[in-house]
């Protein structure tokens, strides 16, 4: 049960037209190396699902700027003026959800359920008439599960079976996406032997992971971004 795979092979499994979830909230948790390989291989007409669009010139913004992304399902792209420009000029279709609804839609797919009843956004512009359900005397909004063909995940640490550990705020959507996507590709800078991670400290059990790409080193993209440091 060794899931370690070459990055070329892991990413080559993704066809054009695929629906791809990408972990990360801003930079932390963003699988920059997997994204760069997807850019290199040239898959097109992708639908991406990510909390945000990263910032111009890095992460999934590279895919957007290269015209590879037809559609982005997200919650907020305010930090990426390029993505907003692509959206406003109709070169990128963007579907927005409240952040917790996006998380919960993904988690619902990951739990093998099909939708959930909520009151978030009831009466607001984001709610359409056909999403309303009167049930047992109350009115709810039905949010449907959001699945994907692939998930691209960055883990701080893994064993070679694919048990994952996240660090800091880099966890965010990753454990949910690992459950919700049919094929889960993980990049990690640190791969250990099974048993080295305590069983109750594993964030994503290996059952949810299909392939594991070892990063020989963390490039500059993974470093602290100077323009976010206040002096």
């Amino acid at each position: 049960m060794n899931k370690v795979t070459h990055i070329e092979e892991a990413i080559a499994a993704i066809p054009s037209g695929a629906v791809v979830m990408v972990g990360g909230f801003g930079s932390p948790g963003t699988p920059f190396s997997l994204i760069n390989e997807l850019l290199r291989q040239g898959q097109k007409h992708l639908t991406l699902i990510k909390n945000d669009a990263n910032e111009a010139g890095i992460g999934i913004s590279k895919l957007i700027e290269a015209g590879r992304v037809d559609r982005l399902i997200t919650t907020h792209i305010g930090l990426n003026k390029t993505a907003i420009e692509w959206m406003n000029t109709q070169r990128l279709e963007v579907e927005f959800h409240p952040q917790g609804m996006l998380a919960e839609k993904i988690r619902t797919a990951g739990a093998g359920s099909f939708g959930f009843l909520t009151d978030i956004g009831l009466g607001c512009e984001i709610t359409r008439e056909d999403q309303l359900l009167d049930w047992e005397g109350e009115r709810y909004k039905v949010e449907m599960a959001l699945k994907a063909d692939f998930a691209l995940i960055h883990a701080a640490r893994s064993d070679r079976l694919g048990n994952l550990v996240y660090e800091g705020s880099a966890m965010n959507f990753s454990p949910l996406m690992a459950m919700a996507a049919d094929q889960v590709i993980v990049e990690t800078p640190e791969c250990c032997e099974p048993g080295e991670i305590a069983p109750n400290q594993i964030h994503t059990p290996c059952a949810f992971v299909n392939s594991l790409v070892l990063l020989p080193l963390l490039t500059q993209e993974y470093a602290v971004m100077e323009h976010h440091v206040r002096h």
Partner: protein
Amino acid sequence: MSDIEIILKRAVHEVHPGSILNLGIGLPTQLLDYLPDDLDVMIHSENGVLGAWKQAPREEMSASLIDAAGAYISTVKGCSFFDSAVSFAMIRRSKIDLTMIGAFEVDQEGNLANWKIPGKFSPGIGGAMELAQKTPRIVVLSTHCDKHGKPKILTKCRLPVTAYHCVSRIITDKAVLDVTPDGLLVTEMAAGMTPESLQAITEAPLIFAADTLDLTEEVKLS
């Protein structure tokens, strides 16, 4: 003192020891700079942190740890990290005692608009809708008027609403206003403001507390 400073120094008084709070991106996040270092609060950040704190010293910054505003934060003792589903479960289960949030518009019923200006500004929704709808106490931090001098405190929100009947209190550079069943009650005013001059820059009709305090004095206490 700038308008922003006035608002933030006054906002410090809203933070009670032992509470959990969320600071919206923008003006509220800047409140961090005004909080005393030994304050016993847990700051929730939507990206999966309970116990977020001020920017970390340069040598302790981690590229894997930011708050929802993108700052490389430090954490308090007892901090926890969790996924986005748990993070918003915490919000929707009303475990956040207080959210300070920015506003484009807020109205006399406590309705809040802060996510979209159709045709001009629509970067997404983020966590605002769930925070606004589910936090037991929402305090809006905002300049009293927009940069063109137009009132932001309205009779009825004209922009798409983030959440209805959610705001408890509004803190501006000119006044502190509580949303009450009878309308907006002014409890503090900045030095030099009169009921008439405040009403003149506010669209919603105002009620004035019998003992309206001096906002400027409150600010000096911080």
